[in-house]
């Protein structure tokens, strides 16, 4: 099993996902650092990501877009705050407009990912902090899968009825 633990805290609007991989921390680090590897997993299978820019250094920025089944291309960006290879990455992940540049009025999500060598593998802990439900919904619309979208839509319908 890849995901071994998760904590969802709706009051703190924080998500923690802990996973374990059968590889060294250096190998797991590579899937973040190498843009060609990163784009193979960042987007859902139906919304593959393309990283047009990936400056994986402190204060470096990334620009990416995802391509949906109907040709839609939502854009996003990262700004790297901390890099401690191969232990920790901290970055902001935000929405971008059609020009690929950061969108004003939507706060980026601070995220941190840490890597720890454990027996026979690497434990990766990713923490995502949200500011409010509006931001969460906007970020989720990006490359959200049909099933997930429906589930959230059903909740909304339930709450507004």
């Amino acid at each position: 099993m890849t995901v071994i633990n998760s904590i969802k805290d709706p009051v703190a609007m924080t998500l923690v996902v802990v996973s374990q991989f059968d590889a060294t921390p250096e190998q797991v680090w590579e899937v973040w650092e190498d843009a060609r590897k990163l784009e193979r997993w960042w987007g859902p299978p139906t919304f593959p990501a393309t990283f047009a820019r990936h400056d994986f250094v402190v204060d470096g920025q990334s620009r990416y877009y995802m391509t949906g089944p109907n040709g839609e291309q939502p854009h996003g960006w990262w700004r790297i705050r901390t890099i401690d290879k191969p232990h920790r990455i901290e970055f902001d992940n935000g929405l971008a407009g059609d020009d690929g540049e950061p969108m004003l009025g939507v706060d980026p999500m601070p995220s941190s990912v840490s890597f720890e060598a454990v027996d026979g593998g690497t434990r990766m802990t990713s923490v995502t902090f949200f500011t409010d439900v509006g931001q969460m919904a906007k970020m989720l619309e990006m490359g959200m899968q049909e099933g997930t979208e429906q589930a959230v839509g059903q909740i909304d319908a339930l709450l507004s009825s």
Partner: protein
Amino acid sequence: MSANSFTICAATEERITYNHMVVDKLMDRDVDRVFRALADRTRRDIFERVLVTGLSVSTLADDYDMSFAAVQKHVGVLERASLVTKQRQGREQIVHGNIPTLQRASALLDAYEQIWIQRDQQIAEILGEEGSSK
């Protein structure tokens, strides 16, 4: 769902169901530290109390070992996140918990968790290919 069951959902001692298996939460120390640093206890406590009943900021402030302004600041953070609403009642501001926001936040976090589960599966595939090519 009652206010109480949401309080339980928000608690850290949670069990998650994944792939039809109930996994006892490993209280990973790192996770615990990050988590506690951010999920401010006073704020959580205020939120849980106003879910049960509306309370004035001054009533809340009486119960914490901190200034009225500090408590007001915590309420402000919750208000900006739409987790509470304030209602003027005479000279008092009554703070109420906003259950729909909590429900919506829970649903959105579930959806976001699914995205991460999928990402992790894709990462495992990439690492697996590398492993087998060696």
